[in-house]
């Protein structure tokens, strides 16, 4: 049945599926994992870095991009589609600021991106964008926000979420471990993001990239050394927890 209704995006199947949109969601799963966490005073974005070819300039392979000074996003899926969406979002952020003299709210720019994606699910001869995005930032009211969009053009606010390959595993980890204690302070929220990624990342800390935004502060990208330090701390804590556990049982 699918083969007759997945040729043109504008066609519904008899049981109400838009197969191209569902296939676009499969394309998202081909991208590496990205995780977003909303803390009390911080928002964290962590991504699994794809290994870069020897001759490739690492700076041009980025999964985390700033949309404005106070908003950034991570994506998973088709690289080229992401570039187009990010460009449009960045232009919109500046256009909005020049028009109303206020920076965009995270919800506004998310809604803009989601509307753009939805347009491509209803247009003649176009295919949907094959990316999902995690958009984080702080609004003027000082409240941290995390939103997720997908190829169908829907967007929702989340406390923590993951997209891309193995997103399901990471989301289950987050469901178990996202507690008030886990986001009690900034460093705990950062550790939670790294721990979630370590569940699925293939070679540990050197394949992780991390970005944070603190209230009234610009985006900060963690260096490889800072991430290694965090990973070492996490491994130490894990060992201590296991030692305590084995002591209790004996």
């Amino acid at each position, binding site marked *: 049945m699918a083969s007759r209704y997945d040729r043109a995006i504008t066609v519904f199947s008899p049981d109400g599926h838009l197969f191209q949109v569902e296939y676009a969601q499969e394309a998202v799963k081909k991208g590496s994992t990205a995780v977003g966490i909303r803390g009390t005073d911080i928002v964290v974005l962590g991504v699994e870095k794809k290994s870069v070819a020897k001759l490739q300039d690492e700076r041009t*392979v980025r999964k985390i991009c700033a949309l404005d000074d106070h908003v950034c996003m991570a994506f*998973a899926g088709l690289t080229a589609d992401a570039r187009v969406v990010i460009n449009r979002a960045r232009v919109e952020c500046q256009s909005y600021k020049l028009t109303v003299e206020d920076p965009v709210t995270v919800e506004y720019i998310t809604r803009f991106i989601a509307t753009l994606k939805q347009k491509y699910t209803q247009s003649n001869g176009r295919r949907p964008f094959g990316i999902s995005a995690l958009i984080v930032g702080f609004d003027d009211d000082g409240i941290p926000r995390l939103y997720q969009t997908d190829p169908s053009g829907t967007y929702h606010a989340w406390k923590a979420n993951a997209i891309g390959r193995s997103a399901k595993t990471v989301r289950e980890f987050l469901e178990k471990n996202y507690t008030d204690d886990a986001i009690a302070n900034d460093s705990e929220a950062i550790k939670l993001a790294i721990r979630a990624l370590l569940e699925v990342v*293939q070679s540990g800390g050197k394949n992780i990239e991390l970005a944070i935004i603190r209230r009234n502060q610009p985006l900060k990208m963690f260096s490889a050394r800072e991430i290694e330090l965090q990973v070492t701390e996490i491994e130490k804590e894990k060992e201590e927890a296991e030692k305590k556990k084995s002591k209790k049982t004996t």
Partner: protein
Amino acid sequence: MRRAGAPLSGRDGGGDTMAATFFGEVVKAPCRAGTEDQEEEEEGRRETAEDREVRRHLARKREVRLFRRQTKTSLEVSLLEKYPCSKFIIAIGNNAVAFLSSFVMNSGVWEEVGCAKLWNEWCRTTDKTHLSPAEAFCVFYHLKSSPSVLLCQCSCYVAEDQQYQWLEKVFGSCARKNMQVTLLTCRHVTDYKTSESISSLHSPFLKALKTQNFKEPPCCSLLEQPNIVHDLPAAVLSYCQVWKIPAVLYLCYTDVMKLDLITVEAFKPILSSRSLKGLVKNIPQSTEILKKLLTTNEIQSNIYT
């Protein structure tokens, strides 16, 4: 763009009738009146000598040949006739091959006993005679310390018309006694038939399909109906079912078809099966070997980030 539902006039004079569906697609409607120009059509279908020559040439090109790489001689009899075995483990596809390479082949000395060379449209190389080991291959090994254990690493695609030839050259055409076959392969999770939505499935996951004579309990749950498998694994299973050979196929459904650590590790439950248990020695070392294999074989693709 033509609006859906617009009537379409038949483009051909007679014979073929075209009809437009509600959705604007054009389908060929069968004409029950029969065609007037049957004689002309038959003439077109008659084979010329040239056609026959082309067909012969194609058949020769697509022939499956089994030979020994060291001596460059072809095998005159089927592989199992020359090397009878009690355990035959076959890995089909790059993830299954990587699993056997890291977990089974590094725990023991394996000697190459044969190699299958074949060409079809899926092959990247046009030169049939010089297939290098780095490209898609189909190689057979036996364990030096226990020659009754045979292993096949098949990372090339065997087309439908070649599967019978492959079976003939490898299994031969008579019953093999006291042999057990274990197959490993991967399929994309969208091939898995289920009433649930695919996004709710926890891939990769393992499913098993076995022949009637396979009495051991498999290492994972059986593939539910409609339990359809494809390609070479299906051909081997059918052969084993017909010749009453106990065989089991472990099928890993994954959403990453290229070489991937998590997909390869999904085969791990098989290590506890009777056929593989004696063959695996050092699992932590195997995981390291697997990681190395993955990094060396990683194809740089910038399409997805």
